[in-house]
């Protein structure tokens, strides 16, 4: 198939160009963050230094950057945990059909589809209407979780689809209570899915601007700080250093998850293989009964 091979080659080149389009600007930004002290925000590079990275930790904006980074980290971690918990409980409900399942599903999808700026605006109105003050933990956490929840929910639904319900029955038949079954049988089987849900909750909140913008009430998160630095003042290469650093945090989280997932999958595959080996070995043991007679009725 000569033509097939050529198509594949052309597509491969196209794919590389696509990656260049995706990653190119970020790589350029990362490179420019190592500008010399007198360097500008565009090429050419004027020397090579850590000056702008140093500005992040000891420059005049260092304090507010550190403060917002820590606040963002806390908010994203909590958002990740809440997303994982809510995705688990919600998807547990969906293991059985119930009356409002279609309606609730649409609500979850609405969470995916509602623009962040609307969520921010509406929540600000709602809180004002109730005469409550908006704040990072009271409201921004809520809207950020709404953003991560559909992703976590879909992951967990996929997990339950491939989940074998009979192990829970077996556990109950062996005398374990619901709580013990949940803790010792269910959770160990689905925790990678939960970790995935956490990852979505964490990274989406870590990077979110729109859903926090009108709610933070003075307590800026890192994306808000970055936006202020970009739009509100003259851009300097230290913004690129900050951008590179936050991207590194996101990619580190994803990388860590992939490593954990790979280890779990490999271990599970090995377990499966050893179980198969065991089963094969068992069949090779000569049977004491005469041929044709079975000890237990065949199913």
């Amino acid at each position, binding site marked *: 198939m000569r033509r097939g091979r050529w198509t594949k080659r052309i597509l491969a080149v196209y794919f590389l160009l696509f990656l260049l389009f995706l990653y190119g600007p970020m790589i350029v930004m990362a490179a420019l963050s190592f500008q010399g002290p007198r360097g500008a925000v565009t090429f050419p590079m004027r020397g090579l230094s850590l000056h702008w990275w140093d500005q992040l930790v000891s420059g005049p904006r260092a304090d507010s950057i550190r403060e917002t980074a820590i606040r963002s980290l806390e908010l994203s971690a909590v958002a990740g945990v809440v997303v994982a918990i809510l995705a688990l409980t919600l998807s547990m409900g969906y293991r*059985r059909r119930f009356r409002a399942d279609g309606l609730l599903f649409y609500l*979850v999808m609405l969470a995916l589809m509602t623009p962040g700026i609307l969520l921010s605006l509406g929540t600000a109105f*709602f809180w004002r209407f109730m005469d409550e003050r908006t704040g990072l933990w009271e409201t921004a956490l809520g809207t950020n979780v709404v953003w991560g929840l559909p992703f976590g929910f879909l992951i967990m639904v996929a997990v339950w689809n491939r989940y074998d319900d009979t192990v829970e029955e077996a556990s109950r038949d062996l005398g374990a209570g619901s709580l013990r079954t949940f803790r010792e049988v269910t959770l160990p089987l689905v925790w990678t899915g939960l970790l995935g849900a956490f990852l979505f909750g964490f990274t989406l909140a870590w990077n979110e601007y729109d859903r926090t913008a009108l709610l933070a009430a003075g307590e800026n998160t890192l994306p808000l700080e970055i936006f202020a630095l970009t739009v509100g003042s003259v851009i300097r290469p230290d913004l690129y250093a900050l951008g590179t650093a936050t991207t590194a945090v996101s990619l580190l989280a994803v990388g860590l998850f992939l490593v954990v997932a790979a280890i779990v999958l490999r271990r599970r595959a090995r377990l499966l293989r050893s179980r198969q080996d065991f089963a094969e070995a068992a069949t090779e043991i000569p049977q004491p009964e005469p041929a044709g007679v079975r000890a237990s009725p065949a199913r």
Partner: protein
Amino acid sequence: MSSPSDREGARNVGGLRTEDIEQAEQMLAERAQETAALGERAAPGVRGRRALVTAAWTAPGAVWLLFFLLAPVLMIVLVSFWTRTVSGFESVWTLENYEFLFQSNVYWNQLWDSFWHSLVIVAAALVLGFPVAYFLAISVTSLRMQIALFIVALAPFWTSYLIRAVAWIPMMGRQGALNTALEDLGLISEPLDILLFSDFAVTVAMLQLYILFMVAPLFFMLAQIDRSSLEAARDLGANSFKTFREVILPQAMPGVVIGSIFVFILTMGEFATVRIIGGGQVASVGTIVQTQVASVQFPQAAASAVFLVVAMFLGVLVLLRFSNLREEL
């Protein structure tokens, strides 16, 4: 023709008489009725408990969504019909906000621009993203390779769109990397002005930000195509174009629609990228809402937001006409 005795003989199976069989059948029917009645009596209790358990599982998520999604969205609709005060709004009904927007040519132009802009980005994402998804799903044959490349292509999803917008700044502008590169290659003699603070710049940046939302659904749909069906099409004499139109495209259609809806909605509501790349020169509905909020025009901002949602809804309805998602998924 069979005589009655023959029929009797036919039912006289295994030494059982017809009467015995009939009696057994009747008994079975009675049992079945009893069991059914028993089940019905037990059912409300069991069903009730199950419903309670399901309600307990779904309640936390549902309450969260009611509080932070449904209530805010309804609140926007309410406020859009309320009156503006110096510090915000009060619940006095009015149509003033909508009247103002209906009479504002600036607003209509920007809403239309936003709508049109999003459609252009959707089309571009589809055309540019399809080969990527096709390559990943069909050209790459090893599963391991497929997963690895898919992760590489999708990883930017987990990075900040704000940062990715910022990353376009050194690329664009008169002295930006793109202009410099084009000049060095001798393709242009003067730096292009369209490369920053322009519609074009915003389109390119948004395309890079949101094309992943097109590639991912396309990939998932294309990956479900049985490769042998492609071979079969070829063996039956279909050329590449025909194979594409009659085998691949129908399979990919739900992915096309889902991806288009995603890209359309995300770019319609987009605000930060427009502000960063457009530098205040380019407006979208998102930036209008933000400006109205900044000047404490809350009810007007709400009305703009309602228009935005209506526009989105219309766009989604148009996109849904291309595929019956409910049937195909």
